[in-house]
């Protein structure tokens, strides 16, 4: 059995058939609220069950619990508030209990029952979720730019939305679950990423894969901060890596349309919960997972998992790896006794600088096939 969905059952708020026709017609008469691509991705993740047990955006009761207890009001672990922000003007004369149409580019994509309209304290939100009020933090900066009210309530997806360009790699939780079952996998480890793979990433993935049936490599596509790798670069780099270095029958590559929040430890748990919904039983938690700058301690994203014995997915903490010339391969500090003079540290920052300068990173850091693919892009980074 693959992992049970978070909260017990896979949420499905995708409407089809005659009911969809009816709701599309209804949407034309409803008050409309235009949403961003980020919110559209949340809507999609709710509807397809990636955010199970959420059936919509958080109401104030759940919001407060998530902010302060890292759990929904029914005690289910949930660490990142999934909220919909609106301005008073956008809300117009919508009242609690009304249905609204959520539109993207003017087209209705979902109908939402507005159960709750509430104000929020952005600084408190930032302090709780990001552990800082510093507007230099990309997640905090985004929070401060959000609108003054939040609306919560269940929604139904009435029009397919997707992140253009990655349809071939976009699998929904129901699909990965069937896929894992067909492959006969019972234990599946997920790897979250927003980077092109270097030898360190490959090492942790394969270390984990040694003990389970299958590996899901699951990079995020969608909003990222300046200087991060562009989505198409990450995808192309993994295509090359998998083609040359992975056994085809033990790895699945798919992308997840979800924004990065850079919320460090809280986001690490969120990433794990989402992968549980995709059917994974294990989740690799990186050192400084989902971190940015120096806002989080290197192992905070590991420590936080001790607060969730009821998470329902097993976190795997694999130490930072490096190339050791004496050992003659990729190792970590727990298994290599040699000194710094033998160790080649793999720094993402250093690799980035080399790539920016058009230089190929050495083979002790990155597979040549991967480096070549990345260097083929005129600008591999988000501007």
């Amino acid at each position: 059995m693959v992992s049970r969905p978070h909260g017990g059952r896979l949420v499905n708020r995708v409407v089809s058939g005659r009911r969809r026709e009816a709701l599309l017609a209804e949407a034309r008469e409803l008050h409309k609220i235009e949403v961003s691509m980020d919110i559209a991705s949340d809507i999609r993740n709710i509807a397809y069950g990636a955010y199970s047990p959420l059936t919509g955006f958080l109401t104030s009761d759940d919001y407060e619990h998530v902010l302060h207890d890292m759990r929904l009001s029914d005690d289910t672990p949930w660490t990142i508030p999934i909220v919909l922000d609106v301005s008073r003007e956008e809300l117009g004369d919508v009242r609690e209990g009304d249905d609204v149409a959520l539109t993207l580019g003017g087209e209705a994509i979902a109908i939402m029952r507005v159960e709750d309209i509430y104000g929020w304290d952005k600084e408190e939100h930032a302090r709780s979720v990001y552990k800082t009020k510093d507007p230099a933090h990309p997640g905090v900066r985004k929070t401060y730019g959000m609108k003054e009210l939040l609306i919560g309530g269940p929604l139904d997806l009435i029009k397919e939305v997707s992140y253009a360009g990655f349809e071939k790699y976009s699998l929904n939780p129901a699909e990965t679950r069937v896929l894992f079952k067909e492959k006969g996998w019972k234990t599946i480890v997920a790897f979250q990423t927003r980077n092109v793979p270097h030898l360190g990433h490959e090492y942790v993935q394969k270390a984990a894969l040694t003990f389970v049936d299958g590996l899901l490599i699951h990079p995020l596509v969608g909003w990222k901060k300046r200087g991060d790798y562009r989505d198409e670069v990450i995808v192309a780099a993994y295509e090359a890596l998998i083609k040359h270095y992975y056994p085809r029958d033990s790895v699945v590559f798919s992308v997840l349309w979800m924004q990065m929040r850079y919320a460090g430890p809280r986001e690490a748990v969120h990433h794990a919960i989402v992968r549980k919904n995709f059917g994974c039983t294990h989740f690799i938690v990186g050192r400084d997972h989902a971190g940015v700058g120096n806002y989080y301690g290197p192992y905070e994203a590991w420590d936080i998992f001790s607060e969730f014995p009821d998470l329902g997915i097993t976190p795997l903490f694999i130490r930072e790896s490096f190339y050791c010339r004496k050992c003659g391969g990729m190792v970590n500090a727990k298994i290599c006794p040699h000194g710094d003079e033998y160790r080649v540290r793999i720094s993402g920052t250093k690799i980035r600088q080399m790539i920016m300068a058009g230089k190929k990173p050495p083979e002790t850091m990155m597979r040549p096939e991967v480096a070549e693919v990345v260097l083929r892009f005129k600008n591999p980074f988000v501007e």
Partner: protein
Amino acid sequence: MEKETVSVEISKDLYERIERYIKENGGFSSVREFIEFVVNEVLEGEEEGGYSSEEEIKERLRSLGYL
């Protein structure tokens, strides 16, 4: 245990069409069984929403090269 029931009226014409259908196609022992089956199908289909059947999911996975 016998389930509690309620009565619903449908047009005589439709009732007779269902009777004829059962006679020709079999599979149901009564009009009531037929109606309960069809209604259940629709309701369950709605609850499952956009999810395709497992067979349809496999078809999509095959077309994408995952299977």
